């Protein structure tokens, strides 16, 4: 496969623009960095193998990613168990100034991931797609509901996650 051949393809632009956001979304959705990377790759495999007739865009990528993540979460519960097993397994961000701050940060991230995993896939999709800047209409299409119901889904998700985060954050 030559680079020149690939450059001519539309997926390159989609990849350039959305791969990172897709990985971030999938990391938050699944709580598993390896799985998130695998699924992001799988989305682009789908794009090359079976491109949608109407053309693929950002919403299509995230829609496929959500479906793959839901399927994966049904079959890969072991990974989730591993993740929930300890906060020290959580992949996190920039190197912190001190080990104590890093520890605190990892605890917070772990608590957030636990909270996200505790809500339903539909609620998680709505909450995380909103975080990625999708409109209520796009979220509705992705989760298969009406635009009017998206607000209810998001509000429910916010309340549940906030309730889970409350004690966890106080502890840290």
């Amino acid at each position, binding site marked *: *496969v*030559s*680079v*020149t*051949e*690939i*450059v001519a*393809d539309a*997926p*390159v*632009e989609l*990849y*350039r623009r959305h*791969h*990172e956001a897709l*990985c*971030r979304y999938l*990391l*938050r959705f699944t709580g598993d*960095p390896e799985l*998130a*990377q695998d699924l*992001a*790759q799988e989305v*682009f*495999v789908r794009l*090359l*193998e079976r491109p949608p007739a109407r053309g693929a865009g950002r919403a299509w990528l995230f829609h496929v990613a959500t479906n793959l993540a839901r399927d994966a979460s049904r079959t890969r519960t072991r990974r989730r168990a591993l993740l929930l097993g300890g906060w020290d397994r959580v*992949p*996190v*961000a920039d*190197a912190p100034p001190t080990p104590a701050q890093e520890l605190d*940060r990892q605890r*917070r*991230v772990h*608590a*957030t*991931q636990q*909270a*996200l995993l505790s809500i339903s896939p539909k609620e998680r999709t709505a*909450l*995380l797609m909103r*975080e990625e800047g999708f*409109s*209520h*209409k796009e979220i509705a299409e992705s989760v298969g509901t009406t*635009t*009017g*119901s*998206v*607000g*209810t889904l*998001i*509000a*429910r998700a*916010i*309340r549940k*996650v*906030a309730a889970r*985060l409350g004690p966890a954050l106080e502890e840290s």
Partner: protein
Amino acid sequence: MSRLAHHLDDAALIRLLDDVDDAGHADHDRSRLHLEACDRCARAARELARQDARVRAAIADVRWAEPPPLPVVGRPLGRRAGRPARRRSWQQAPWLKAAAVLLLVAAPAVALEPVRERIAALATAATGALAARGDGAGTATFGARSGAEGAAAMAPEAGAPQAGTALRFAAPALLVVEISSWQRAGELRLEPATGADAVLEVVGDAAGTVPVLWRGGVRIPNAPAAAADYRLRIPASVERVRVRLPGGSAAMDVDGAALRRVTRIPLAGG
């Protein structure tokens, strides 16, 4: 514009919070007016906004430390010596073999396309990490090089396993090389390149190791069972190579004059 008879529900509050006007201007404005006049709904809106801000801040913390590695897959150049090819079940059952042949004949060409290789190239093309250079044909892919340099590098050494992966890429000024594991044997060898690209070659028993390219540099996800050498040729544009060793060891920086000569970093044992 009339006031609402009922209090605002969650959906309406979120629509106000997100400034979504899917129900039409009139409804949106009515909700807004109601919120201004109703203490109960205003309190509910403030509480939801407070929780929302907290949840969003928490979610924002869950992110990649650095851009996720690109799903780049090297192409093996040959089978390792000393390891017999795995016999598949269809090779042992004639009727399965016949069925497989029929399936192959019937399958559309697109199904046989090396999609994952295309993904690798897609990732590479998208980030501009891999430069299509050499013979000008624009066919630079992992494990496939052009000209005398490529031919020389791809030729198996005498007695060495006939396997390897080569990765050519445009390196940043600070090139980070991450090593996942100490190995049975082998070394990372840094040496100056003559061309403009960095080239990483995997030589020897890599035990399936395939280097992964990411924006900061290259990751070698090697296994303890591996015994390969990794030869990284560094172009003059690179100012510093940071080698992150396994097991949380401190990173090793190679820069200045050291980049103009060969540096060997043993990977055996640890």
